[in-house]
């Protein structure tokens, strides 16, 4: 057989399961076959198809950084059939993974610039991959600012890492929760991401912003970014259309002629505006 079956998944063993927030878990996955691991390479921003045999495939990003070798991580919320099946998996179970698919964040282009990460709720996982990637190449970037918000304190994901970033002198971390979502001992901000962004107003010159979160957050954050000096080309996000094949064939993620799985999911705001509003 000269062509390879692109739908054959890598077998991955669940090494570690972390409960991040209600209904949200992170899996640390290791390749069952060592040769798969040595052939595997990905860039930050790419995603994959994770599958539970018998339940099917589900699409989400690779939440770990390519600089962390030997494993990949994914974070997902229990929502549909496959994520429910994944949610019920145990450490040691074997699941399927195929990928990486899609484009990636153009980290090379950002060298020498400041990087602002803005994430809301379950929008942090794709951003986290970039954050670690940048932190592992810390010298190449100027200021690194992370603004992360969630509905409630309970809903914040990667709580350990948030603590770690908070301690680092070379990272500015701002965490916020929606009004009413705070606990008595909450030390972060209280307020919605756009207003906290406005309050912090990091400089937009010679900087890029990566925005990921619920559509309403993105919608309200963009004008503020433009206001504080970011350009449409320097604002990046990642699209989350429904995907099935990951390779630009099944048609589900098509936005006009653009396939989110192939031409995306990473897109800058300037390009995003050229797409029909079908995402």
């Amino acid at each position, binding site marked *: 057989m000269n062509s390879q079956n692109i739908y054959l998944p890598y077998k991955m063993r669940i090494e570690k*399961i972390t*409960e991040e927030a209600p209904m949200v*878990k992170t899996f640390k996955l290791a390749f069952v076959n060592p040769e798969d691991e040595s052939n595997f390479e990905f860039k930050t921003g790419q995603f994959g198809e994770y599958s539970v045999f018998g339940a099917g495939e589900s699409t989400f990003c690779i939440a770990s950084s390519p600089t962390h070798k030997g494993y990949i991580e994914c974070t997902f919320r229990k929502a549909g059939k496959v994520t429910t099946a994944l949610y*019920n998996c*145990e*450490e040691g*179970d074997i699941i399927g993974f195929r990928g990486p698919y899609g484009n990636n964040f153009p980290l090379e282009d950002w060298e020498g610039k400041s990087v602002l990460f803005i994430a809301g709720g379950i929008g942090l996982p794709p951003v986290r991959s970039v954050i670690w990637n940048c932190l592992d190449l810390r010298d190449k970037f100027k200021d690194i600012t992370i603004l992360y918000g969630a509905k409630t304190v309970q809903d914040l994901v990667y709580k350990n890492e948030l603590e770690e970033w908070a301690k680092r002198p070379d990272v500015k971390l701002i965490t916020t929760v929606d009004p009413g979502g705070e606990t008595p001992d909450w030390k972060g901000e209280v307020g919605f991401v756009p207003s906290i962004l406005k309050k912090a107003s990091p400089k937009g010159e010679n900087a890029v912003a990566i925005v990921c979160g619920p559509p309403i957050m993105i919608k309200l954050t963009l004008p503020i970014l433009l206001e504080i000096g970011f350009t449409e080309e320097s604002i990046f996000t990642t699209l989350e259309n429904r995907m099935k094949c990951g390779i630009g064939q099944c048609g589900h993620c098509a936005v006009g002629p653009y396939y989110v799985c192939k031409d995306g999911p990473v897109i800058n705001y300037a390009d995003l505006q050229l797409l029909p509003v079908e995402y």
Partner: protein
Amino acid sequence: MARIGVFICHCGENIASTVDCGKVAEISSKIPGVVFSTDYKYMCSDPGQTLIKDAIKKYKLTGVVVGACSPRMHEPTFRKVVASEGINPFFCEMANIREHCSWVHPKGEETTQKAADTIRILVEKVRNNEPLYPIKVPVTKRALVIGGGIAGIQASLDIANAGNEVILIEKEPSIGGHMAQLSETFPTLDCSQCILTPRMVEVAQHPNITLMSYSEVESLEGFIGNFKATIRKKARFINEELCNGCGDCTLKCPIKKIPDEFNAEMGKRPAIYVPFPQAVPNKPVIDKDNCTHFKNGKCQFCKTNCSAGAIDFDQQDQLITVDVGAIVVATGFTIKGTDFFPEYGYGKYKDVVTGLQFERLLSSSGPTLGEVRRPSDGKVPKKVVFIACAGSRDPAKGIEYCSKICCMYTAKHAMLYKHKVPDGEADIFYMDIRAGGKNYEEFVRRAVEEDDVNYIRGRVSKVYEKNGKLIVRGVDTLLNSTPVEIEADMVVLATASVAHSDAESLAQKLHISYDSYNFFSEAHPKLRPVETNTAGITLAGACQAPKDIPESVAQASAAASKTIALFSQDLLTREPIIAVSNKSTCVGCFLCQSVCPYLAIEREEIKDRNGNIIKTVASINSGLCQGCGTCVAFCRSKSIDLQGYTNNQVFSEVSALFERSEEYV
């Protein structure tokens, strides 16, 4: 992350002698998600429970499957164990490997395999379970007692004496029921009225009891703690406020020859009447069907003679709605009618009477003032034949059950007859004598030994008249089935006790279940004998099955105690096994509403921000829902799920059953 523990109980030898419990535990340990699996002799015992608790701690279990007996018995036990370790109790499931495996199958590999499969499907269910929390509902501390016989009276008094309000409704003009019709009661032969009437008066005077006689249940909605009953107070054409009970009206009524229900139609009464002298309330009622005024508008004797001005021909039925928290159903029984015994000549020969009619003949308040005189000619019968099991225990008649009270009252009748007619002869045809009560057997012996009652074991095939005498033809099975013919002056039938003709419709109004004889069904024949399957509704007396007075009273007190226990709480805690609807996918066809036996499905309007109705969807009243799941089955868009038994949970169980891998053998 599911970390499930499996605990297999031997139930002593009950399970272990048939199922290889160790093997079941071993197979279970291979199921994905099972991190601990063991077997133990008595899992419900204290050490067994401790074993589960320790395992939960040690293995950080998130769910538990206990393979043991019926969850009906021990599910609460094990759920408590799990809850005590901080796990939501609904992550504990019981696999019934006793009733479903060891008790019904022989010892063998297949039985063990079935037990293992049963465990496996429940592990699959636990993996799909969700935490559930008890539901709290408020309680209206007022009881509705339906039926004012001895059972209803007793229940009302007990509930009222505990400080709760009671509404007692009785469909006849007076409370008292069948007990008021009796002469003496077995086994002590004390006067029925003498012991009953003080209770009746107590009811009438009790500050916590509202008595509504001549009233019936029209409809019932609501749920435990929160019922809304609509009561039809039938027009008695008497202003009860004004009436002083003098009785003048009944004396002046020109119609006097209506068969008297209280005397089992052995006597006559006027069209305006008080059923019996001790009636409570002591207010007359006009029998509209027989009253001349209502027939042609001419007569007004009662009205003109009423000094209190209490006669009100224009009175209408009233519908009264009351809020009650609990209901005691004590509607009693009736006896089979005249058309039931053509072979015994009942209805054809005046001197063939029912036990209840004979009871009235014996009663000092009866039509003969307590003298035994036969209906045909008023003569004192010298030979009376009693036929027990007239209709009862007779599959050919469609009544297979024992009416329970006949053996005792027939003995009583014969005994009382002999006391009143010492030179008379009393013969009793019987099948068996069932005298299983305190002092009952002694009572029967007394009839035979002291009062010379002649017991003949056998069935009567026919009663016919010859030369003015009733000939009772039967067999004596103790004498080689010799045919016997006895000439009798009077024949008394111990007719079958049956449910009221309106029992079925009442059950449907109350949403309680009933058996094939229309007697109301208890929730469990042994462990929940007074509750019905509808929470908050209890049963007392012979509406459940034939009962004698002590039993009826005991059950009435039991029903009262259930009610009082319910009223002792301000909020009710209910199991959250109820249906929930998905309002986003519901299209509002309301098929669910038409099938819900508990009227638990309500219509809820979904509105947009401007208050426009977008759609109307089904919403489930968590207080009313009993979790039967009928709506779930009917919902086409699968927008209803039963908490604790969701479609997905049940589906996963069934799928697990069909995918037995070789790993689990």
